[in-house]
C-alpha cells in the first residue's frame, strides 16, 4: 500500500516536508515516493499529507492508480471548461 507521484509533478517540494514517513524524495525528472516507506499516513493522519498540499491535479495516485485529486478538484476549473479553453488556444 503506497501512493505514487507521476510525471505531472512540477517539482515544487511542497509534499516532501509534510510526509510523516520521510517516504518522498527529490529525484529526476520528478519527486518520487518510496513504496517501502509510504504508510499512506496510516496512524499519523486521516488524510494523505502529500496529496493534501499538492497543487497539481492528477500528480499523486492512490494504491489503485486513481488520482487522489481529480481534474477540477483543486483549481475549481470545470474539466470541460479547461478542454474548451485549450481547444480554443490550439485553433489559433
Amino acid at each position, binding site marked *: 500500500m503506497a501512493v505514487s507521484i507521476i510525471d505531472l509533478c512540477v*517539482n*515544487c*517540494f*511542497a509534499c516532501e516536508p*509534510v510526509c510523516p514517513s520521510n517516504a518522498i524524495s527529490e529525484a529526476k525528472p520528478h519527486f518520487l515516493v518510496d513504496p517501502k516507506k509510504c504508510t499512506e499516513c496510516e496512524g499519523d493522519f486521516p488524510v494523505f499529507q502529500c496529496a*493534501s*498540499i499538492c497543487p497539481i491535479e492528477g500528480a499523486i495516485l492512490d494504491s489503485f492508480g486513481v488520482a487522489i485529486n481529480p481534474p477540477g478538484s483543486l*483549481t475549481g476549473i470545470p474539466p470541460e471548461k479547461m478542454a474548451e*479553453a485549450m481547444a480554443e488556444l490550439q485553433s489559433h
Partner: protein
Amino acid sequence: MQLPVLNNTPSQAEHGAKSGCSASSCGTTDNQMDSLPDSIREKVQNHPCYSEDAHHYFARMHVAVAPACNIQCHYCNRKYDCANESRPGVVSELLTPDQAVKKTMAVAATIPQMTVLGIAGPGDPLANPERTFETFRRLSQEAPDIKLCVSTNGLALPDAVEELSKHNIDHVTITINTVDPEIGAKIYPWIFWNNKRIKGVKGAKILIEQQQKGLEMLIAKGILVKVNSVMIPGVNDQHLAEVSKVVKSKGAFLHNVMPLIAEAEHGTFYGVMGQRGPTPEELQDLQDSCSGDMNMMRHCRQCRADAVGLLGEDRGDEFTLDKIEEMDIDYQAAMEKRKVIHQAIQEEMDSKRLEKAVKAQQHKQEPKLTTRPVLMAVATSGQGIINVHFGHAKEFLIYEASPEGVRFISHRKADQYCGGDTSCGDGESVLQLTIRALAGCEAVLCSKVGYEPWEMLEAAGIAPNGEHAMEPIEDAVLAVYKEMAAAGKLDEKNEAVRANA
C-alpha cells in the same frame, strides 16, 4: 540632508480625491515618499520596490529558492515556466540556497546599483522556511550591504516573524486581497493548514486571520510592511479601499494595488474562466480613491520571482547557473566599489529632490492654469531622464500633467508580456500593439522617434515628441503641457477626457 516634507493632511486628501490629484504627489515634488516620516524614508530611499524615486536608480533581484506553496490563488498556475513570460510566480531555474548566495553576490558585484535581494517565490517563501532562511542567514553574513526582503501570502507569517527579525529583514510584503472571507473564497480555492486542505470560506477566513495577525506582529517588531493587492474587477475591486484603510490603521506604510493578469493561455482559474483584469483607468481610479487614506505605490512591475535589474528590465539571462559558476567574485572589493557608487547615486537623488522642491515652489507662484489634465507617456531607462528611443522602449512610464503639476501614474508594457516576436498576437505588429498600449495618452516623450511610428502615433492622436532627450522627466512633461496649453489644445476643463483617458 533634511528636505521639506509635505503633510498628508485630510483637507489635502479630500481635495486630491475630487480633482484626481493625490495629496502625496501633488505638484512637481511628485513623490510618494513625501508624506512619510523621515525614519521610514531613510529605510526605503534606496529600495526600488518601496520608493518611486529610487526605482529610477537602484536595482533589485529575486532569487527563486522557494518553490512550495501552502495556498492556491485563482490567478496562479503552478505549472507555468516560460522565459518570455514576466509575471509573479514564474521562474526558469530553481536555486538551492547555496546557488542563490553565489548568484546574489555575482549580481551585486556586476550591477553595483543592486541594493535589494528579495525572496518572492515561485511559491511562498515562508512555506519553504529552511531554504528561505538559510539564504537570508548566509547573505546577512557574507553580503551585509544588501537589503533583504521577503514577500508572502501571510499564512505562515505569524510563526516566521521571530526568525525574520533575527535576519535583519526590515521590509516585508504581504499580499492581502481581501479582509472578507466571503470574498476570499472567490480568490483562494484552498489553503493547507494543520495537516488538512481546507476549502472555501473556512480556508479564506483562516488565511485572512493569519495575514492580519502577521501584519500586527511585524509592526510591533518595527519591521516595515508593504501590502500588495491584486485588483480583480467584480470580485474585490469595490472592497480594496476598505483593505487599504484596515492595513493602514494597523501600520502598513505602503499599499500596492496591482492589476489582475489573466489570460486563458496561463491556465489559471481566472484566465480560463474569462475573468478580465482592470483597465488602466479603473486601476488608476482605485489607486486615486485609496490615496487619500494611504500611500499608494504605482511603479510596481509585477516582476518574476527570479527577476534581476532595474524594475523595468530583466538581466536574468546574464546570471544563469552556468554563467555564475565561471565568475570569480571578490566581494570585499565589490563592497568598496558599491559603497562609492551608492553614495554618488544618493547625492544625485538628493540634489534632484531639492531641485524639484524648488521648482515646485516656483510652479506654485506662477499663475495657475485652468486647463484639463493630460496623460503623457515617457521612454526612460532610469536616472529620471528621457533617454530611450521610441522603438527600443520595452515599457513607458505614464505621467499626468495638470495645473497642479506632474505626477507619476503607472507604467505600461510596450510588448504585451511577450518577447517582441512579431508573430505574436492577432496579426498586429509590435508597433500597433505599442500604440494601443498608449491609449489615453496625448503625447509620448522619448529621445527619438522614427518616421513610421511618428506617422502612426499622430494618426492615433498621440503627439510624438523627441525634443526633450536627456532632460528630467517632470520638467519635460510640464514643458510639453505648457506648450499644449499655450497652443489652446487644453482649453476647457474637460472632466470627461480623464474619465475616458
